């Protein structure tokens, strides 16, 4: 990268040559208005708003007007942003764009954070001169997530560029011509793309807005916000939840260049309503005997009862939670003792995740930061349905697939940021992206090569690929010619790539698949130090929990069954999602006491003797470890009403009452974090994942409310005219207040993106070291796993055998972005998109078994559902949806019989 010296309005600046002038100007902090440009979508030159003046040389006094987004930065360039001609041009341009724009800002959901509003004010267009009628459109029903109001459109084309080009959606497009251009669908209907919610942030005005937010709308400036982390999968995307009046109102993306960048998936954006769900546990509940109804009890009583249960000389075991913070899990571990602490997942799942951690630790290949996936130029996915288990990873893979075909644009000297031309040059050519999965997935269309098979087939093929890359890898006996050819093709492509990436995960339930991925990555590493790995995990803190426990739910139940335990303390977990239903019921009944700390009423809650109400991610502070091993702090957004408290405080208090254990010395969250770091040296970086609670800037806390927040003195006027004291928060550097430090805080403490004159989400430009790159001061989060780059790895040797053909089928879990995740299913918009339980069969298997579409079948004696014929499922596999509410734990491993239920 070469630097260029450019002159802007008489001052000299040094910037990277070859980038677009608009990006350079924005990175330097200039307020150049723009619409069609977006840092992730780059330039198309459609809106004519970012005009600047260019001068040939010092003698040129006239200059010429050019679009800065379409102009490459060259050395010695002379530019004016403030020239009167070009200022007038920009004002006139916006006047044109505003011709048909309605004057509905006061009732528009975008008002107050509208890029169009900001730009209009910035250019100085204040008076409407046109006398003509505005064109109007009929709006469409686009489903539960996105609201449509086409009259506000200024035809910047960002929506279709994001939806079609970036996210590969095919059901949103542009219609018509001239001044009746329409962005929408061919007919009303649910937007099918799982990233559709990003339209809300991509649209520079109010055409696409958050439909769930409409039910409880609050302006951006009235929201109380804090930096947070998404809890709906293991990737750890950064989010900004917003609250007012004790209700969580919405989720917005929080840019983190190393993680999610600019985008969220729809589960992450719309799953939040579980926090407001009527199923929330808001006060302590107890039942006097089995089969009795729960009765509420006061907080102090609950605390005493909890301590009492623990002190009855019972044999207590604790079950932690992969969806609870490190701090909450550690508190439980301290409460029950390390040997009595069990990870709240199936033992098989814990083994898979620990296998992944091992591979990341002992091997030399680092886990790739999610935000860097898009820079890879060859991708192999082994086994994992990333679209549904790690959606933003899938979105980034799509961008990675573009890199190799972009060589065609490079050869033509088309800068990649010149988006339309570069895409035109690359045509429909597919990059080296290989998909080896158990069934058809959404990514199939984008892959160069797709192979489908059972988890064992997947692993075996993976081992062959590794063997082709390095002969020291074990070879696989009995592979047929076709599969060998496929493996050879993949190995060749990966071997030639500059930045190859291998992705796998626990989705198929097979450890062999994970091992095969490790061998491929390690084999690549021998010749290419850029090789990278990525493992997904099922839940937001699966990885963190796996550091703390060596046994899991099945072992905990076994302890109850053999009489080694009679009291169960369960943290933020519904055991029915983990293992066999009958076994859980028997165990819970066998216990003297079952205590649950959770925020939602679910199957386990209804069987607990004592239920303690705990805060969700929005009501507590804590740390999560993402699938790549990044420890990230999420901060309490608002103080919950009533008896809801953080899990760790309930447990700390119980320990204090008992007068035992070190819990008594945990005054603040930071005390637990220090204890975690002391106990687990690997988790030491957790301390640095965000500043401590005592952190102040100029002696001030960071305010959660904006300086414009309204109604502070009047919002409680119906009950009291006194302004209540804001709640204290000793656990974080944030205050529940509009008062505090008004400048930019460190990157891990940014509660919202706002800058003077930039009220929209585009204010983010002002927080990045360069527009589109990392946040000033570095992206938040600390890695807890360092790869062992010193030693040669020992290749994994154990390869699955080919099973003899049989009439039984191999069960494979099918994941659904809307449906498979527990918490988001308490959000009505997400639940509305989830499928009903079903059993997927290849049509040929179905006809062999005498089954047809809709027949009710039973699997393994416990799973029931109607048959759905799915040609994309290979023969010999039966697909069972994972995690749908009320369906219990999934079925993986072995073989099962599918039998018709005759009623």
């Amino acid at each position: 990268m070469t630097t260029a010296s450019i002159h802007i309005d008489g001052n000299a600046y040094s910037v990277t040559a070859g980038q677009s002038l608009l990006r350079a100007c924005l990175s330097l902090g200039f307020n150049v208005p723009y619409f069609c440009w977006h840092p992730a979508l780059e330039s198309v030159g459609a809106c004519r708003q970012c005009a600047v003046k260019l001068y040939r040389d010092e003698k040129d006094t006239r200059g010429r007007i050019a679009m800065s987004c379409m102009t490459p930065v060259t050395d010695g360039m002379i530019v004016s942003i403030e020239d009167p001609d070009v200022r007038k041009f920009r004002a006139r341009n916006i006047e044109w764009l505003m011709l048909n724009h309605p004057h509905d800002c006061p009732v528009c959901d975008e008002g107050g954070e509208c890029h169009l509003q900001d730009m209009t004010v910035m250019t100085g267009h204040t008076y409407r001169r046109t006398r003509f009628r505005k064109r109007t459109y009929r709006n469409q029903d686009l489903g539960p997530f996105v609201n449509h109001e086409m009259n506000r459109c200024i035809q910047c084309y960002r929506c279709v560029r994001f939806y079609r080009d970036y996210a590969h959606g095919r059901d949103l497009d542009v219609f018509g011509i001239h001044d009746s251009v329409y962005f929408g669908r061919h007919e009303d209907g649910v937007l099918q793309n799982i990233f559709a919610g990003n339209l809300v942030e991509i649209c520079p005005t109010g055409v696409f807005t958050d439909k769930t937010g409409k039910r409880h709308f609050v302006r951006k400036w009235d929201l109380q916000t804090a930096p947070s982390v998404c809890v709906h999968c293991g990737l750890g995307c950064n989010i900004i939840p917003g609250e007012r009046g004790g209700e969580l109102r919405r989720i917005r993306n929080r840019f983190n260049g190393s993680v999610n960048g600019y985008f969220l998936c729809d589960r992450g954006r719309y799953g939040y309503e579980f926090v407001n769900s009527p199923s929330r546990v808001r006060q302590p509940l107890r039942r006097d005997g089995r089969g009795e109804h729960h009765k509420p009890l006061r907080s102090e009583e609950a605390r005493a009862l909890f301590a009492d249960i623990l002190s009855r000389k019972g044999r207590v075991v604790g079950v932690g939670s992969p969806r609870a913070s490190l701090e909450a899990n550690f508190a439980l571990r301290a409460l029950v003792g390390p040997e009595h602490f069990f990870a709240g997942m199936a033992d098989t799942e814990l083994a898979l995740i620990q296998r992944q951690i091992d591979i990341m630790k002992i091997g030399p290949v680092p886990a790739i930061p999610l935000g860097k996936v898009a820079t890879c130029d060859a991708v192999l996915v082994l086994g994992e349905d990333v679209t549904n288990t790690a959606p933003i990873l899938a979105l980034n893979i799509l961008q990675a697939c573009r890199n190799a075909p972009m060589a065609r644009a490079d050869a033509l000297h088309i800068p990649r940021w010149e988006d339309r031309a570069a895409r035109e040059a690359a045509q429909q050519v597919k990059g080296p992206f290989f998909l080896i999965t158990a069934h058809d997935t959404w990514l199939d269309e984008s892959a160069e090569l797709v192979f489908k098979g059972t988890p064992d087939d997947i692993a075996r093929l993976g081992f062959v690929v590794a063997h082709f890359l390095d002969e020291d890898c074990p070879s696989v006996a009995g592979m047929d010619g076709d599969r060998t050819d496929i493996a050879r093709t993949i190995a060749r492509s990966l071997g030639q790539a500059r930045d190859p990436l291998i992705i796998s995960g626990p989705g198929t339930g097979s450890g062999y698949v994970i091992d095969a991925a490790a061998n491929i990555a390690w084999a690549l590493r021998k010749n290419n130090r850029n090789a990278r790995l990525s493992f997904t995990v099922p839940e937001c803190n699966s990885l963190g929990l796996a550091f703390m426990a060596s046994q899991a739910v099945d072992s905990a139940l076994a302890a109850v069954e053999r009489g080694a335990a009679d009291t169960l303390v369960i943290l933020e977990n519904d055991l029915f999602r983990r293992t066999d239903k009958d076994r859980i019921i028997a165990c819970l009944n066998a216990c003297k006491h079952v205590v649950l700390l959770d925020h939602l009423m679910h199957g386990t809650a209804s069987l607990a003797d004592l239920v303690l109400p705990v805060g969700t991610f929005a009501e507590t502070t804590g740390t999560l470890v993402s699938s790549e091993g990044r420890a990230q702090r999420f901060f309490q957004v608002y103080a919950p009403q009533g008896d809801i408290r953080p899990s760790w405080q309930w447990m700390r208090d119980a320990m204090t009452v008992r007068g035992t254990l070190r819990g008594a010395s945990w005054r603040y969250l930071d005390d637990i974090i220090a204890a975690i770091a002391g106990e687990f040296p690997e988790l030491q970086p957790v301390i640095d994942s965000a500043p401590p609670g005592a952190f102040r800037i100029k002696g001030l806390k960071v305010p959660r409310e904006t300086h414009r927040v309204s109604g502070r003195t009047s919002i409680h006027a119906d009950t009291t005219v006194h302004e209540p004291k804001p709640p204290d928060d000793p656990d974080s550097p944030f205050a529940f207040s509009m008062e505090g430090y008004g400048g930019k805080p460190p990157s891990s403490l940014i509660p919202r993106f706002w800058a003077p004159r930039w009220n929209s989400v585009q204010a983010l430009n002002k927080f990045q070291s360069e527009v589109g790159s990392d946040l000033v001061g570095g992206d938040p989060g600390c890695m807890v796993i360092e790869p062992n780059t010193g030693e040669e790895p020992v290749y994994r040797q154990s390869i699955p055998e080919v099973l003899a053909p049989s009439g039984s089928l191999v069960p494979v879990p099918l994941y659904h972005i809307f449906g498979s995740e527990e918490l988001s299913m308490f959000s009505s918009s997400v639940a509305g998109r989830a499928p009903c339980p079903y059993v997927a069969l290849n049509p040929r298997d179905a006809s062999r078994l005498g089954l047809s579409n809709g027949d009710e079948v039973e699997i393994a004696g416990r799973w029931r559902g109607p048959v759905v014929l799915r040609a994309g499922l290979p023969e010999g596999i039966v697909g069972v949806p994972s995690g749908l509410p009320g369906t219990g734990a999934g079925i993986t491993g072995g073989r099962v019989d599918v039998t018709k239920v005759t009623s």
Partner: protein
Amino acid sequence: MLSEDERMEILKELEGAEDAPSIAMEALRIVQGRRGYISDETLCDIAAFLNMTPHELDSLATFYSFIFRKPVGRHVIYVCDGVTCWVMGHESIFEHLKQRLGINWGETTEDGSFTLLPVSCIGACDHAPAIMIDSTLYGDLSKEKIDEILKEHR
């Protein structure tokens, strides 16, 4: 459902084409040639045949003035509203047509003989003001000439 003939004709266009979507315009014209216009149902059939979504095909179809997404009359009159025709009296031509036919832009006469559509430029600036009826170009128009032309098409 596309007819056998329509399929054959589209497949013929497909020979030598890079991919199916690249002949979308030809496919629309082939089917419109036989059916007069592209209904929603027809659009979906063609899209499925070309491995496109209806959204993608409709995006193309609605861009072009010569693809009809609603039924039209036996003859379609395209009135050029390009700059040259406008300078040379486009407005009076349009007013006259409107009065003679008793219809406005986008409408079809009651007897189903004419549909009136604007078109951005038909490349006949040297004979402005100009119109097209179906595929025939008429230039250097006056009110009298229009009456004559209409009579021919009745």
